[in-house]
């Protein structure tokens, strides 16, 4: 390769025609095609190729250009771009669901919702900017380290789990065999940090809010896990892709598991701390619950994290019961990602409807609902699925 030439075309470096994604020896997804990675790999080929070409113009034949175009460096930088793409897509989807909530909730309440720019979408951006510009106040007597760390972890875990949701068979971060379990595990982590954060803030409202988050978690987590196990049992796998394609092969799982679908929907609402079950931040009695002492940027990010979790909850419902990114007859289709997102937003619309129509439950009522309603329902659901499975329908 170390051929000294006077002038090299940029096309040689970009290598647009010649690169092959899967042939790269460091290709991280084994033998599966990954669309966002392919996009980022192509992007790096263009960006890195240009940089390598520029360096090569100044220092002809240098090893840096060569390294930049090599397999290892390409994979490294492509992965960085890949992460950015995944995050931006999830971020935009979340903002859209936030916008959708504001508009739909407004119409349900006979008002207009946000109206600034692009039918109100830019209001999210304006709100974000506003919270970022606020002063970063930390109350005097809080446990500073725990105070900062817990909120970072709540936000971090929420973003992480949102990024780990696959949008289609070709749009994923990791394709574990236990994908469903891992997503649910990360999803269930946040209440722990909320609990600790409630202790750290030196505020009675936060303390009660944190305790309530724990109380909320023990009431919905068990039936939720039973229902995940039921779905996995029906599909015969914990792999998200397998579950989706199993539904495509037979029937969408909300038909055999209609009980489970409704129960899981409400559990997911509770998991994302949305209105009927937002007892941890019940603003009528606890000001803002565990978020009381967080101000400015931290509060804005917590709010955003809430919507990330709402998005994840809807995505889980879509994956487990609504056939994920597949459509009947068509199957995958040309753009399964859009199909998936549309389904997710439909579930989110149902959540908005529930929020508009219902009131907040009491902490002792959520325990009752969790253990006396959701739990038996999920077991009934499991029994139905077992019967179907034993009867050989699936």
């Amino acid at each position: 390769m170390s051929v000294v030439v006077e002038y090299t075309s940029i096309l040689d470096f970009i290598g647009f025609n010649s690169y092959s994604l899967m042939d790269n020896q460091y290709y991280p997804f084994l033998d599966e095609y990954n669309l966002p990675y392919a996009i980022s790999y192509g992007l790096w080929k263009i960006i890195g190729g240009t940089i390598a070409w520029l360096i090569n113009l100044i220092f002809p034949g240098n090893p840096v250009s060569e390294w930049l175009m090599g397999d290892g460096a390409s994979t490294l930088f492509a992965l960085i771009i890949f992460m950015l793409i995944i995050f931006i897509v999830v971020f935009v989807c979340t903002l859209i669901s936030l916008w959708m909530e504001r508009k739909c909730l407004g119409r349900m309440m006979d008002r207009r919702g946000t109206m600034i720019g692009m039918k109100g979408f830019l209001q999210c951006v304006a709100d974000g900017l506003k919270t970022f510009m606020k002063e970063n106040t930390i109350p005097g007597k809080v446990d500073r380290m725990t105070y900062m760390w817990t909120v970072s972890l709540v936000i971090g875990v929420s973003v992480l789990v949102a990024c780990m949701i696959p949008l289609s068979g070709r749009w994923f971060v990791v394709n574990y065999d236990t994908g469903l379990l891992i997503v649910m595990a990360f999803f269930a982590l946040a209440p722990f940090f909320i609990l600790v954060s409630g202790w750290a803030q030196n505020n009675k409202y936060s303390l009660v809010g944190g305790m309530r988050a724990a109380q909320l978690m023990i009431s919905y987590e068990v039936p939720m896990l039973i229902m995940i196990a039921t779905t996995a049992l029906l599909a015969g796998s914990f792999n998200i892709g397998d579950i989706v394609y199993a539904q495509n092969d037979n029937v969408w799982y909300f038909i055999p598991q209609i009980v489970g679908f409704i129960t899981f929907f409400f559990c997911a609402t509770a998991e994302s701390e949305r209105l009927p079950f937002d007892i941890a931040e019940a603003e009528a009695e606890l000001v803002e619950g565990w978020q009381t002492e967080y101000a400015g940027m931290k509060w804005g990010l917590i709010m955003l994290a809430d919507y990330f979790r709402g998005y994840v909850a809807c995505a889980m419902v879509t994956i487990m019961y609504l056939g994920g990114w597949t459509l009947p007859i068509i199957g995958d289709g040309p753009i399964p990602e859009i199909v998936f997102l549309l389904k997710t937003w439909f579930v989110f619309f149902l959540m908005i409807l529930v929020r508009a129509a219902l009131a907040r439950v009491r902490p002792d009522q959520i325990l009752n609902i969790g253990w006396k309603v959701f739990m038996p329902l999920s077991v009934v659901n499991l029994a139905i699925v077992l019967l179907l499975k034993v009867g050989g329908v699936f």
Partner: protein
Amino acid sequence: MTIKYLDKYPKNLAKSLWVLKPQWTVLKLFAKTVVHRPVTVLYPYEKEWVPENYRGRPGLIFDKCVGCGMCARMCPTACIKLVDAEDDNGKTVKRPQVNLGRCAMCGYCAEYCPVDAMTVTPEYELAEFTRFDLIYGPRRLNYEGTTEGMKVKLEVTLPSDIENGNPERRVSLFDLDRPELIDSKCIGCKKCAKVCPVNAIEMVEKGVNEKTGKPILRPVIDNGKCICCSNCVDDCPKDALEIKEVL
């Protein structure tokens, strides 16, 4: 009359499927507002219709005002003050000035104005940058489109009329009440004649003081001109005048 709601509720919630009926109600309104527009009035761009008698800031018809100070006397927040102003002929006259920072928009100035010079106006966007700007002088109080409905009429019926079986006769509060002189108290100082805004009081000579030889002056009130503003009563140093109320 009949009980309407307590007959039907509380009802068996299982029949309304626990939480489904409210969701259906909300969804119905959602469908309606997606097709039609929501009930919101987009305030700065479109405004609600206000009736003629809407009580916004007070307005003043400069030429009609006689400067009697009835508005200042009746104002519950004491935001009206009489100030000197030049009328069209260059004469200095007393006219009301309103501090809108204190105005409660109660409409008393318009209601009690004996000559209907003070009005209510439908103007309610009154924000200013400084407090000084909120003080409306007599000329600034003028409102362009003053209509008849903005002049609040104070129509009352006399209780004696109702007793006489003639209840429909409505009179203004100020038509019948007149100041009355208690002759023994009067010292003839002419103060009442000076403060009278409509020059209804004339000082008439009623003989000569025997000791000093000076003429004895007594106010005579022209009932046709008097508007019953009770300025003379208030300013009388010896309380020799008092309003005689006709009931």
